[in-house]
């Protein structure tokens, strides 16, 4: 077999996984950003100490246990209790639930960075507390959080490689199975690296465009 056709075969095999990698990244990004934003809102604005404690506990637990352990609990642990998730569902859920804790902190930092006067001025003109949050505080907090959310998204893309451990058929999963059958270790993993770059660079670019559009306040 020619070197070129070997490479074509490898690339085809890996591309099959690339779709899953992208899908898992986007789905878990959506889940983690929605969950994190919700948690941040409650943590920042609800007055119940009980809810605060619950959210803090959630974030601590998520942050202090390895991602792989979470995935194994969701995939193998739940299965032994009779709840069988597909590997892709478990991957999205696992990365999304962990990501919720990460993005919760990012959003909270965004809200915390706003001067007290922003909310006071909103209340003073007669906006309700909810309107103050939705129209005055959230848009500003989002802008502040956007760059770190971008970094998180790229990190998440890279982290999807660990879900091959629960047999989710993404890039690394295909790479490993091809290595065991063809022994083209260097070529395969180099192609993997290029593939990740090919996904993360446009992702970075998209985030930069978002930042340019919303991140900096126009001058």
């Amino acid at each position: 077999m020619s070197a070129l056709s070997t490479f074509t075969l490898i690339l085809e095999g890996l591309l099959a996984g690339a779709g899953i990698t992208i899908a898992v990244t986007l789905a878990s990004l959506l889940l983690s950003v929605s969950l994190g934003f919700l948690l941040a809102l409650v943590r920042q604005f609800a007055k119940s100490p009980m809810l605060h404690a619950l959210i803090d506990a959630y974030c601590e637990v998520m942050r202090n246990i390895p991602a792989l352990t979470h995935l194994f609990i969701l995939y193998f642990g739940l299965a032994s209790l009779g709840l069988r998730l597909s590997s892709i569902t478990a991957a999205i859920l696992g990365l999304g639930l962990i990501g919720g804790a990460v993005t919760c902190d990012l959003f909270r930092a965004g809200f915390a960075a706003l001067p007290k006067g922003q909310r006071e001025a909103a209340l003073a003109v007669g906006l309700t507390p909810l309107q103050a949050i939705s129209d005055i505080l959230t848009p500003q907090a989002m802008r502040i959080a956007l760059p770190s959310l971008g970094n998180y998204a790229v990190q998440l893309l890279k982290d999807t490689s660990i879900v091959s451990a629960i047999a989710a058929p993404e890039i690394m999963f295909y790479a490993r199975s091809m290595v065991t059958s063809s022994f083209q270790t260097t070529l395969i993993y180099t192609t993997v690296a290029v593939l990740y770059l090919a996904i993360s660079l446009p992702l970075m670019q998209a985030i930069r465009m978002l930042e340019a559009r919303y991140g900096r306040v126009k001058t």
Partner: protein
Amino acid sequence: MNPLLSVTGLTKSYGAVEVLKGIDFDVAPGEKIALIGPSGSGKSTCLRCLNFLEKPSAGEVRLDGERIGVRHDRPMNDRQLAPQRAEMGMVFQLFNLWPHLSVTENVAIAARKVRGLPAKEARELALEMLAKVHMTHRADASPLELSGGQQQRVAIARALAQKPKLMLFDEPTSALDPELVHEVLKVMEELALEGRTMIIVTHEIAFARDIADRVLFLDGGRIVEEGPARELILTPREPRTQAFLRQIRH
């Protein structure tokens, strides 16, 4: 004539520290009140208790006879307070414009969200208010592009757009570079001439003397002396007022 605003027995404590120790005063419709006093005397706290940005510990605030912040003997929450706050325009020392919104949106948003005006009418109202503060030419700018004096004038327009019964100013010029103070005072003077009811916390004694009808001198959480503006400023009776005015003049 019934007072527009009536404050009785207003007290505010932070923990064990009593910052306001029983404030009483009335404001007639159209009256201009200057609130002066040394730093830490409780001027800002007093002003912020009027629209309940600070919750008074005791006492009563009534606007047009309506009790502010209390309904059926129960304290109101921020959502319930919103319509009452909308009746009072407040201008802050640090402007507190919203940087993610344009100048016009800063002025229009309350009209849309609080009074439910359609976007077009809210915008027209905003432009009208911006004209009053001579800021029409920067209607589409971001607040971040403006000088401090311009920002404060936009903040005044934002408060005017509420169509408030009463305007509250908390040291509106003390964060400004000296050369920008005048443009803000001029706008406030124009509002005063329109017959608006205003309470102004200020260190601009000459402005208070010329614009205010009445001056309240606050010290240690109490109104130590009050009287017609010229009289109190030119011939204060209380030794503490005399000392304060002497110090601020030199």
